[in-house]
Protein backbone atom coordinates (compact mmCIF):
# COMPACT_ATOMS: atom_id res chain seq x y z
CA UNK A 1 0.00 0.00 0.00
CA UNK A 2 2.95 2.29 0.50
CA UNK A 3 3.51 2.42 -3.19
CA UNK A 4 -0.14 3.00 -3.87
CA UNK A 5 -0.26 5.88 -1.45
CA UNK A 6 2.76 7.48 -3.00
CA UNK A 7 1.18 7.09 -6.41
CA UNK A 8 -1.54 9.62 -6.01
CA UNK A 9 -3.30 10.51 -9.20
CA UNK A 10 -1.20 13.65 -9.64
CA UNK A 11 2.26 12.11 -9.44
CA UNK A 12 1.31 8.84 -11.02
CA UNK A 13 3.34 7.56 -13.96
CA UNK A 14 1.34 4.81 -15.64
CA UNK A 15 2.84 1.71 -17.16
CA UNK A 16 1.41 1.22 -20.61
CA UNK A 17 1.87 -1.78 -22.82
CA UNK A 18 1.68 -1.22 -26.56
CA UNK A 19 1.10 -3.98 -29.08
CA UNK A 20 2.28 -2.60 -32.41
CA UNK A 21 1.66 -4.15 -35.77
CA UNK A 22 4.93 -4.78 -37.62
CA UNK A 23 3.77 -3.34 -40.93
CA UNK A 24 2.11 -0.09 -39.93
CA UNK A 25 2.22 1.04 -36.34
CA UNK A 26 5.72 -0.20 -35.55
CA UNK A 27 7.01 1.61 -38.62
CA UNK A 28 4.93 4.60 -37.49
CA UNK A 29 6.62 4.52 -34.10
CA UNK A 30 9.96 4.27 -35.87
CA UNK A 31 9.10 7.31 -37.94
CA UNK A 32 8.15 9.22 -34.78
CA UNK A 33 11.58 8.31 -33.45
CA UNK A 34 13.63 9.33 -36.46
CA UNK A 35 11.58 12.50 -36.79
CA UNK A 36 12.49 13.26 -33.14
CA UNK A 37 8.89 13.78 -32.11
CA UNK A 38 8.60 13.92 -28.32
CA UNK A 39 6.01 11.64 -26.73
CA UNK A 40 5.24 10.19 -23.31
CA UNK A 41 7.85 7.63 -22.25
CA UNK A 42 5.29 5.45 -20.47
CA UNK A 43 4.66 3.02 -23.28
CA UNK A 44 6.50 -0.30 -23.52
CA UNK A 45 6.29 -1.71 -26.99
CA UNK A 46 5.80 -5.29 -28.10
CA UNK A 47 5.99 -5.79 -31.85
CA UNK A 48 3.53 -8.27 -33.32
CA UNK A 49 3.37 -9.36 -36.92
CA UNK A 50 -0.26 -8.26 -37.06
CA UNK A 51 -2.63 -6.66 -34.62
CA UNK A 52 -4.69 -9.84 -34.96
CA UNK A 53 -1.81 -11.67 -33.29
CA UNK A 54 -2.89 -9.96 -30.09
CA UNK A 55 -4.78 -12.68 -28.32
CA UNK A 56 -7.38 -11.21 -25.90
CA UNK A 57 -5.57 -13.23 -23.23
CA UNK A 58 -2.45 -11.08 -23.74
CA UNK A 59 -4.46 -7.99 -22.85
CA UNK A 60 -6.02 -9.65 -19.82
CA UNK A 61 -2.70 -11.05 -18.66
CA UNK A 62 -1.15 -7.58 -18.91
CA UNK A 63 -3.95 -5.98 -16.92
CA UNK A 64 -3.98 -8.65 -14.22
CA UNK A 65 -0.20 -8.38 -13.95
CA UNK A 66 -0.44 -4.71 -13.06
CA UNK A 67 -0.14 -2.87 -16.36
CA UNK A 68 -2.27 0.28 -16.20
CA UNK A 69 -3.30 0.47 -19.82
CA UNK A 70 -3.00 -1.54 -23.00
CA UNK A 71 -2.69 0.10 -26.39
CA UNK A 72 -3.30 -2.00 -29.48
CA UNK A 73 -2.23 -0.34 -32.70
CA UNK A 74 -2.93 -1.75 -36.13
CA UNK A 75 -3.24 -0.78 -39.77
CA UNK A 76 -6.19 1.26 -40.97
CA UNK A 77 -9.13 -0.84 -42.17
CA UNK A 78 -8.46 -2.05 -45.69
CA UNK A 79 -4.70 -1.67 -45.33
CA UNK A 80 -3.88 -4.83 -43.38
CA UNK A 81 -0.81 -6.64 -44.69
CA UNK A 82 -2.74 -9.89 -44.18
CA UNK A 83 -5.91 -8.48 -45.76
CA UNK A 84 -8.38 -8.76 -42.87
CA UNK A 85 -6.40 -9.12 -39.64
CA UNK A 86 -7.36 -5.77 -38.18
CA UNK A 87 -11.09 -6.48 -38.56
CA UNK A 88 -10.67 -9.50 -36.29
CA UNK A 89 -8.73 -7.36 -33.82
CA UNK A 90 -11.61 -4.91 -33.73
CA UNK A 91 -14.04 -7.65 -32.72
CA UNK A 92 -11.68 -9.03 -30.09
CA UNK A 93 -10.95 -5.68 -28.50
CA UNK A 94 -14.68 -4.96 -28.41
CA UNK A 95 -15.23 -8.23 -26.55
CA UNK A 96 -12.40 -7.50 -24.10
CA UNK A 97 -13.76 -4.03 -23.37
CA UNK A 98 -17.16 -5.47 -22.51
CA UNK A 99 -15.54 -8.10 -20.32
CA UNK A 100 -13.65 -5.42 -18.40
CA UNK A 101 -16.78 -3.34 -17.96
CA UNK A 102 -18.66 -6.37 -16.63
CA UNK A 103 -16.09 -7.23 -14.00
CA UNK A 104 -15.78 -3.58 -12.98
CA UNK A 105 -12.58 -2.38 -14.63
CA UNK A 106 -12.64 0.72 -16.81
CA UNK A 107 -12.92 -0.33 -20.47
CA UNK A 108 -10.90 2.82 -21.30
CA UNK A 109 -7.80 0.99 -20.08
CA UNK A 110 -7.75 -0.81 -23.40
CA UNK A 111 -7.60 1.19 -26.58
CA UNK A 112 -7.44 0.22 -30.22
CA UNK A 113 -6.19 2.77 -32.72
CA UNK A 114 -5.23 2.69 -36.36
CA UNK A 115 -1.77 4.12 -37.09
CA UNK A 116 -0.14 3.75 -40.49
CA UNK A 117 3.58 3.68 -41.29
CA UNK A 118 3.54 7.30 -42.40
CA UNK A 119 1.76 8.60 -39.30
CA UNK A 120 4.61 9.26 -36.88
CA UNK A 121 2.84 12.30 -35.49
CA UNK A 122 -0.37 10.39 -35.03
CA UNK A 123 1.51 7.69 -33.11
CA UNK A 124 3.01 10.25 -30.75
CA UNK A 125 -0.35 11.96 -30.26
CA UNK A 126 -2.09 8.65 -29.59
CA UNK A 127 0.47 7.67 -26.94
CA UNK A 128 0.33 11.12 -25.32
CA UNK A 129 -3.42 11.16 -25.24
CA UNK A 130 -3.74 7.59 -23.96
CA UNK A 131 -1.18 8.29 -21.22
CA UNK A 132 -3.25 11.29 -20.19
CA UNK A 133 -6.41 9.17 -20.08
CA UNK A 134 -4.72 6.54 -17.90
CA UNK A 135 -3.30 9.20 -15.60
CA UNK A 136 -6.85 10.43 -15.15
CA UNK A 137 -8.08 6.92 -14.35
CA UNK A 138 -5.35 6.33 -11.79
CA UNK A 139 -3.43 3.14 -11.08
CA UNK A 140 -4.88 -0.18 -12.13
CA UNK A 141 -6.92 -1.42 -9.13
CA UNK A 142 -5.68 -4.95 -9.74
CA UNK A 143 -2.16 -3.70 -9.08
CA UNK A 144 -3.06 -1.88 -5.89
CA UNK A 145 -4.84 -4.84 -4.36
CA UNK A 146 -2.02 -7.19 -5.27
Amino acid sequence: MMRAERETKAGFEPKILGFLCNWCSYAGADLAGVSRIQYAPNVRVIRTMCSARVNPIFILKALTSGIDGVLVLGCHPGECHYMKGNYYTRRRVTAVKHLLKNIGLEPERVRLEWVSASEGKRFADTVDEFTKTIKGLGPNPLRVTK
Partner: protein
Amino acid sequence: MKEKVYGGGLVQSIAAAILKAGLVDEVLAFVTGLDGRDIIPAFITSEDEAQRITTASYNPCSLAKLLHKYGDQHKKIGVVVRSCDARAIIELAKRHQINLDNIYMIGRECYGVANINEDVSGALHIFFDRIEVDGKEQKWEEKMLRPNCLRCEYPIPTMADVSVSIDNNSVKAFTEKGKQILAAANIAESEGATDDLTAVKERASKYQERDFGELTKMEPEERLNYWLSQFDKCIKCYGCRDACPICYCKDCTLEPEHMLVKGAQLPPEKVFHLTRLIHVAPGCVNCGQCEAACPAGIPISKLYHQLYKELSSIFRYESGFDVNVPPPLDTITDEELTLGGVTID
Protein backbone atom coordinates in the same frame (compact mmCIF):
# COMPACT_ATOMS: atom_id res chain seq x y z
CA MET B 1 -40.82 -48.04 -7.07
CA LYS B 2 -41.82 -47.50 -10.65
CA GLU B 3 -41.21 -43.97 -11.84
CA LYS B 4 -44.18 -42.15 -13.32
CA VAL B 5 -43.81 -41.91 -17.08
CA TYR B 6 -44.05 -38.42 -18.51
CA GLY B 7 -44.72 -37.35 -22.07
CA GLY B 8 -46.54 -40.59 -22.82
CA GLY B 9 -43.24 -42.44 -22.87
CA LEU B 10 -42.51 -40.84 -26.23
CA VAL B 11 -38.84 -40.17 -25.54
CA GLN B 12 -38.30 -43.80 -24.58
CA SER B 13 -40.28 -45.22 -27.49
CA ILE B 14 -38.54 -42.98 -30.04
CA ALA B 15 -35.15 -44.03 -28.67
CA ALA B 16 -36.15 -47.70 -28.81
CA ALA B 17 -37.57 -47.34 -32.32
CA ILE B 18 -34.53 -45.69 -33.86
CA LEU B 19 -32.29 -48.30 -32.26
CA LYS B 20 -34.49 -51.04 -33.66
CA ALA B 21 -34.66 -49.47 -37.10
CA GLY B 22 -30.88 -49.20 -37.15
CA LEU B 23 -31.02 -45.45 -37.67
CA VAL B 24 -28.52 -45.06 -34.83
CA ASP B 25 -26.02 -47.42 -33.24
CA GLU B 26 -26.45 -46.07 -29.75
CA VAL B 27 -28.43 -43.48 -27.84
CA LEU B 28 -26.83 -41.21 -25.25
CA ALA B 29 -29.25 -40.23 -22.52
CA PHE B 30 -29.75 -39.94 -18.81
CA VAL B 31 -31.11 -43.18 -17.40
CA THR B 32 -32.30 -44.21 -13.99
CA GLY B 33 -29.53 -45.95 -12.11
CA LEU B 34 -29.85 -49.51 -10.88
CA ASP B 35 -31.04 -48.36 -7.46
CA GLY B 36 -33.93 -46.60 -9.15
CA ARG B 37 -32.94 -43.21 -7.79
CA ASP B 38 -29.69 -42.13 -9.39
CA ILE B 39 -29.60 -40.32 -12.69
CA ILE B 40 -26.64 -41.41 -14.74
CA PRO B 41 -25.64 -40.78 -18.35
CA ALA B 42 -25.35 -43.87 -20.51
CA PHE B 43 -24.87 -44.99 -24.08
CA ILE B 44 -27.81 -47.30 -24.72
CA THR B 45 -27.50 -49.97 -27.37
CA SER B 46 -30.58 -52.16 -26.89
CA GLU B 47 -34.28 -51.43 -27.14
CA ASP B 48 -35.07 -52.79 -23.68
CA GLU B 49 -32.55 -50.51 -22.08
CA ALA B 50 -34.29 -47.54 -23.72
CA GLN B 51 -37.08 -47.90 -21.17
CA ARG B 52 -34.61 -46.77 -18.52
CA ILE B 53 -34.34 -43.30 -20.06
CA THR B 54 -35.58 -40.81 -17.55
CA THR B 55 -37.38 -37.54 -18.10
CA ALA B 56 -36.66 -36.28 -14.57
CA SER B 57 -35.40 -32.71 -14.27
CA TYR B 58 -31.82 -33.45 -13.39
CA ASN B 59 -28.87 -32.49 -15.52
CA PRO B 60 -25.81 -33.72 -13.63
CA CYS B 61 -23.42 -33.24 -16.53
CA SER B 62 -23.45 -31.94 -20.06
CA LEU B 63 -24.37 -34.62 -22.58
CA ALA B 64 -22.71 -32.54 -25.30
CA LYS B 65 -19.45 -32.76 -23.38
CA LEU B 66 -19.82 -36.53 -22.97
CA LEU B 67 -20.67 -36.94 -26.64
CA HIS B 68 -17.53 -35.03 -27.58
CA LYS B 69 -15.36 -36.88 -25.10
CA TYR B 70 -16.62 -40.44 -25.34
CA GLY B 71 -18.80 -40.61 -28.45
CA ASP B 72 -17.44 -42.77 -31.26
CA GLN B 73 -17.26 -40.45 -34.25
CA HIS B 74 -17.68 -43.33 -36.69
CA LYS B 75 -20.96 -44.41 -35.15
CA LYS B 76 -24.36 -42.88 -35.57
CA ILE B 77 -25.46 -41.66 -32.19
CA GLY B 78 -28.84 -40.48 -30.99
CA VAL B 79 -28.85 -38.06 -28.06
CA VAL B 80 -31.76 -37.12 -25.83
CA VAL B 81 -31.13 -33.42 -25.41
CA ARG B 82 -32.39 -30.36 -23.64
CA SER B 83 -32.09 -27.13 -25.57
CA CYS B 84 -28.80 -26.24 -23.84
CA ASP B 85 -27.34 -29.64 -24.80
CA ALA B 86 -28.53 -29.25 -28.37
CA ARG B 87 -27.04 -25.76 -28.59
CA ALA B 88 -23.76 -26.98 -27.14
CA ILE B 89 -23.64 -29.82 -29.67
CA ILE B 90 -24.16 -27.33 -32.49
CA GLU B 91 -21.49 -25.03 -31.05
CA LEU B 92 -19.06 -27.95 -30.91
CA ALA B 93 -19.99 -28.98 -34.44
CA LYS B 94 -19.20 -25.53 -35.81
CA ARG B 95 -15.83 -25.75 -34.06
CA HIS B 96 -15.26 -29.03 -35.95
CA GLN B 97 -15.38 -31.15 -32.81
CA ILE B 98 -18.46 -33.22 -33.61
CA ASN B 99 -19.73 -34.48 -36.94
CA LEU B 100 -23.35 -33.40 -36.90
CA ASP B 101 -24.23 -35.77 -39.76
CA ASN B 102 -23.84 -38.69 -37.38
CA ILE B 103 -25.82 -37.15 -34.56
CA TYR B 104 -29.58 -37.52 -34.16
CA MET B 105 -30.87 -35.11 -31.56
CA ILE B 106 -34.08 -36.10 -29.82
CA GLY B 107 -35.03 -32.87 -28.12
CA ARG B 108 -37.07 -32.84 -24.96
CA GLU B 109 -38.93 -29.91 -23.56
CA CYS B 110 -37.33 -28.53 -20.40
CA TYR B 111 -38.41 -25.77 -18.05
CA GLY B 112 -35.37 -25.93 -15.83
CA VAL B 113 -33.39 -28.50 -13.94
CA ALA B 114 -33.08 -29.13 -10.24
CA ASN B 115 -30.71 -27.10 -8.14
CA ILE B 116 -28.65 -29.77 -6.43
CA ASN B 117 -28.21 -27.57 -3.39
CA GLU B 118 -31.86 -28.13 -2.57
CA ASP B 119 -32.54 -31.37 -0.80
CA VAL B 120 -35.23 -33.34 -2.57
CA SER B 121 -35.93 -37.01 -2.15
CA GLY B 122 -37.68 -38.53 -5.10
CA ALA B 123 -37.89 -38.03 -8.82
CA LEU B 124 -38.29 -34.35 -9.51
CA HIS B 125 -40.05 -32.99 -12.57
CA ILE B 126 -40.09 -29.28 -13.24
CA PHE B 127 -42.77 -27.76 -15.45
CA PHE B 128 -43.42 -24.16 -16.29
CA ASP B 129 -45.74 -23.45 -13.37
CA ARG B 130 -45.48 -26.52 -11.15
CA ILE B 131 -43.08 -29.05 -9.76
CA GLU B 132 -43.79 -32.73 -9.25
CA VAL B 133 -41.90 -34.88 -6.79
CA ASP B 134 -42.64 -38.59 -7.26
CA GLY B 135 -45.81 -37.62 -9.09
CA LYS B 136 -47.07 -35.38 -6.28
CA GLU B 137 -47.66 -31.79 -7.27
CA GLN B 138 -45.87 -28.97 -5.51
CA LYS B 139 -45.75 -25.23 -5.77
CA TRP B 140 -43.21 -23.80 -8.23
CA GLU B 141 -40.39 -22.24 -6.25
CA GLU B 142 -37.43 -20.48 -7.80
CA LYS B 143 -34.94 -21.96 -5.33
CA MET B 144 -35.67 -25.42 -6.71
CA LEU B 145 -34.24 -24.45 -10.09
CA ARG B 146 -30.71 -23.69 -11.11
CA PRO B 147 -30.23 -19.92 -11.42
CA ASN B 148 -29.27 -20.19 -15.09
CA CYS B 149 -32.50 -22.08 -15.85
CA LEU B 150 -34.53 -19.19 -14.46
CA ARG B 151 -32.89 -17.00 -17.12
CA CYS B 152 -33.36 -19.55 -19.93
CA GLU B 153 -35.48 -18.46 -22.89
CA TYR B 154 -35.42 -21.71 -24.80
CA PRO B 155 -37.61 -24.39 -23.18
CA ILE B 156 -38.24 -26.09 -26.51
CA PRO B 157 -35.19 -27.41 -28.36
CA THR B 158 -36.07 -26.09 -31.80
CA MET B 159 -32.46 -26.58 -32.88
CA ALA B 160 -32.66 -30.35 -32.32
CA ASP B 161 -34.03 -32.77 -34.91
CA VAL B 162 -37.25 -33.53 -33.10
CA SER B 163 -38.78 -32.03 -30.01
CA VAL B 164 -40.92 -34.03 -27.62
CA SER B 165 -43.19 -32.38 -25.11
CA ILE B 166 -43.00 -33.72 -21.57
CA ASP B 167 -46.30 -32.27 -20.45
CA ASN B 168 -48.63 -33.25 -23.28
CA ASN B 169 -47.84 -35.90 -25.85
CA SER B 170 -46.89 -33.76 -28.79
CA VAL B 171 -43.96 -34.23 -31.14
CA LYS B 172 -42.44 -31.92 -33.71
CA ALA B 173 -39.78 -32.51 -36.31
CA PHE B 174 -37.55 -29.60 -37.28
CA THR B 175 -35.14 -31.16 -39.74
CA GLU B 176 -34.96 -33.83 -42.41
CA LYS B 177 -33.30 -36.13 -39.88
CA GLY B 178 -36.16 -35.39 -37.53
CA LYS B 179 -38.63 -36.66 -40.12
CA GLN B 180 -36.53 -39.82 -40.47
CA ILE B 181 -36.65 -40.33 -36.72
CA LEU B 182 -40.42 -39.95 -36.59
CA ALA B 183 -40.85 -42.24 -39.60
CA ALA B 184 -38.71 -44.89 -37.92
CA ALA B 185 -40.72 -44.56 -34.73
CA ASN B 186 -43.96 -44.51 -36.73
CA ILE B 187 -45.19 -41.45 -34.88
CA ALA B 188 -47.10 -38.69 -36.62
CA GLU B 189 -45.99 -35.13 -36.11
CA SER B 190 -48.44 -33.28 -33.90
CA GLU B 191 -50.59 -30.76 -35.68
CA GLY B 192 -51.72 -27.50 -34.24
CA ALA B 193 -50.48 -24.10 -33.31
CA THR B 194 -46.91 -23.51 -32.31
CA ASP B 195 -46.29 -23.32 -28.61
CA ASP B 196 -46.82 -20.00 -26.97
CA LEU B 197 -43.56 -19.08 -25.32
CA THR B 198 -44.42 -15.52 -24.33
CA ALA B 199 -44.80 -16.39 -20.66
CA VAL B 200 -41.46 -18.24 -20.58
CA LYS B 201 -39.64 -15.42 -22.31
CA GLU B 202 -41.21 -12.88 -20.00
CA ARG B 203 -40.14 -14.80 -16.95
CA ALA B 204 -36.64 -15.32 -18.38
CA SER B 205 -36.21 -11.61 -19.06
CA LYS B 206 -37.50 -10.81 -15.58
CA TYR B 207 -34.82 -12.98 -14.01
CA GLN B 208 -32.20 -11.69 -16.42
CA GLU B 209 -33.04 -8.17 -15.42
CA ARG B 210 -32.85 -9.11 -11.75
CA ASP B 211 -29.55 -10.99 -11.96
CA PHE B 212 -27.75 -8.68 -14.35
CA GLY B 213 -29.43 -5.58 -12.97
CA GLU B 214 -27.98 -5.99 -9.51
CA LEU B 215 -24.52 -6.13 -11.10
CA THR B 216 -24.95 -3.22 -13.48
CA LYS B 217 -26.44 -1.08 -10.71
CA MET B 218 -23.20 -1.35 -8.71
CA GLU B 219 -20.48 1.25 -9.04
CA PRO B 220 -17.57 -0.14 -11.09
CA GLU B 221 -15.36 -0.29 -8.01
CA GLU B 222 -18.00 -2.17 -6.05
CA ARG B 223 -18.51 -4.56 -8.93
CA LEU B 224 -14.78 -5.20 -9.19
CA ASN B 225 -14.57 -5.92 -5.48
CA TYR B 226 -17.56 -8.23 -5.74
CA TRP B 227 -16.00 -10.31 -8.50
CA LEU B 228 -12.54 -10.26 -6.93
CA SER B 229 -13.98 -11.56 -3.68
CA GLN B 230 -15.83 -14.25 -5.64
CA PHE B 231 -12.68 -15.22 -7.54
CA ASP B 232 -10.79 -15.41 -4.25
CA LYS B 233 -13.00 -18.34 -3.26
CA CYS B 234 -11.68 -20.34 -6.20
CA ILE B 235 -9.74 -23.50 -5.31
CA LYS B 236 -8.64 -23.99 -8.93
CA CYS B 237 -10.17 -27.42 -9.27
CA TYR B 238 -10.74 -26.83 -13.00
CA GLY B 239 -14.30 -28.06 -12.39
CA CYS B 240 -15.83 -25.26 -14.47
CA ARG B 241 -13.53 -26.03 -17.37
CA ASP B 242 -14.14 -29.75 -17.19
CA ALA B 243 -17.90 -29.32 -16.98
CA CYS B 244 -18.19 -26.71 -19.73
CA PRO B 245 -19.31 -28.15 -23.08
CA ILE B 246 -17.75 -25.24 -24.99
CA CYS B 247 -14.31 -25.80 -23.38
CA TYR B 248 -13.17 -28.51 -25.74
CA CYS B 249 -9.41 -27.92 -26.12
CA LYS B 250 -7.32 -31.01 -25.48
CA ASP B 251 -4.36 -28.81 -24.63
CA CYS B 252 -5.73 -26.14 -22.31
CA THR B 253 -3.91 -22.86 -21.99
CA LEU B 254 -4.77 -22.76 -18.29
CA GLU B 255 -2.56 -25.76 -17.52
CA PRO B 256 0.56 -24.64 -15.66
CA GLU B 257 2.96 -25.80 -18.37
CA HIS B 258 1.60 -23.06 -20.61
CA MET B 259 2.88 -20.58 -18.02
CA LEU B 260 -0.15 -18.34 -18.25
CA VAL B 261 -1.16 -19.14 -14.67
CA LYS B 262 1.25 -20.37 -12.06
CA GLY B 263 0.94 -23.99 -11.00
CA ALA B 264 0.89 -24.09 -7.22
CA GLN B 265 -0.92 -20.94 -6.24
CA LEU B 266 -4.24 -20.45 -4.50
CA PRO B 267 -6.40 -18.62 -5.21
CA PRO B 268 -5.30 -18.63 -8.84
CA GLU B 269 -4.33 -15.44 -10.58
CA LYS B 270 -7.31 -13.45 -11.83
CA VAL B 271 -6.32 -14.14 -15.39
CA PHE B 272 -7.45 -17.73 -14.82
CA HIS B 273 -11.09 -16.68 -14.70
CA LEU B 274 -10.80 -13.97 -17.30
CA THR B 275 -9.16 -16.31 -19.81
CA ARG B 276 -11.99 -18.79 -19.54
CA LEU B 277 -14.46 -15.95 -19.71
CA ILE B 278 -13.13 -14.50 -22.97
CA HIS B 279 -12.79 -17.97 -24.47
CA VAL B 280 -16.23 -19.22 -23.60
CA ALA B 281 -18.60 -16.29 -23.13
CA PRO B 282 -18.99 -15.34 -26.83
CA GLY B 283 -20.45 -18.81 -27.47
CA CYS B 284 -21.90 -19.54 -24.04
CA VAL B 285 -25.11 -21.59 -24.14
CA ASN B 286 -26.10 -20.83 -20.54
CA CYS B 287 -26.25 -24.50 -19.55
CA GLY B 288 -25.10 -23.67 -16.01
CA GLN B 289 -22.84 -26.70 -15.70
CA CYS B 290 -19.91 -24.49 -14.61
CA GLU B 291 -21.82 -23.06 -11.71
CA ALA B 292 -23.23 -26.45 -10.71
CA ALA B 293 -19.74 -27.93 -10.77
CA CYS B 294 -18.14 -25.15 -8.72
CA PRO B 295 -17.42 -26.38 -5.18
CA ALA B 296 -16.76 -22.82 -4.03
CA GLY B 297 -20.18 -21.57 -5.09
CA ILE B 298 -19.00 -18.81 -7.40
CA PRO B 299 -21.97 -17.54 -9.46
CA ILE B 300 -20.04 -18.09 -12.70
CA SER B 301 -22.98 -18.63 -15.02
CA LYS B 302 -24.24 -15.14 -14.22
CA LEU B 303 -20.93 -13.63 -15.37
CA TYR B 304 -20.81 -15.71 -18.53
CA HIS B 305 -24.44 -15.27 -19.46
CA GLN B 306 -24.27 -11.52 -18.94
CA LEU B 307 -21.25 -11.13 -21.21
CA TYR B 308 -22.79 -13.52 -23.75
CA LYS B 309 -25.96 -11.43 -23.84
CA GLU B 310 -24.02 -8.22 -24.46
CA LEU B 311 -21.76 -9.68 -27.13
CA SER B 312 -24.71 -11.44 -28.69
CA SER B 313 -26.45 -8.14 -29.37
CA ILE B 314 -23.27 -6.45 -30.66
CA PHE B 315 -22.20 -9.25 -32.96
CA ARG B 316 -25.79 -10.26 -33.77
CA TYR B 317 -24.85 -13.81 -32.92
CA GLU B 318 -26.99 -16.41 -31.23
CA SER B 319 -24.96 -19.36 -30.08
CA GLY B 320 -26.10 -22.86 -30.87
CA PHE B 321 -28.73 -22.34 -33.55
CA ASP B 322 -27.20 -22.50 -37.00
CA VAL B 323 -24.19 -24.72 -37.55
CA ASN B 324 -23.18 -22.63 -40.56
CA VAL B 325 -22.71 -19.40 -38.59
CA PRO B 326 -19.11 -19.30 -37.32
CA PRO B 327 -18.23 -18.22 -33.76
CA PRO B 328 -18.29 -14.41 -33.39
CA LEU B 329 -14.59 -13.84 -32.73
CA ASP B 330 -13.57 -16.06 -35.65
CA THR B 331 -15.44 -14.19 -38.33
CA ILE B 332 -16.18 -10.79 -39.76
CA THR B 333 -19.16 -9.62 -41.74
CA ASP B 334 -19.17 -7.85 -45.10
CA GLU B 335 -20.78 -4.88 -43.43
CA GLU B 336 -17.81 -4.49 -41.10
CA LEU B 337 -15.43 -4.26 -44.03
CA THR B 338 -16.99 -0.89 -44.81
CA LEU B 339 -16.56 0.50 -41.29
CA GLY B 340 -13.49 2.61 -40.63
CA GLY B 341 -13.73 3.24 -36.89
CA VAL B 342 -12.18 1.34 -34.02
CA THR B 343 -15.53 0.15 -32.65
CA ILE B 344 -18.36 -1.81 -34.16
CA ASP B 345 -20.96 -1.23 -31.46
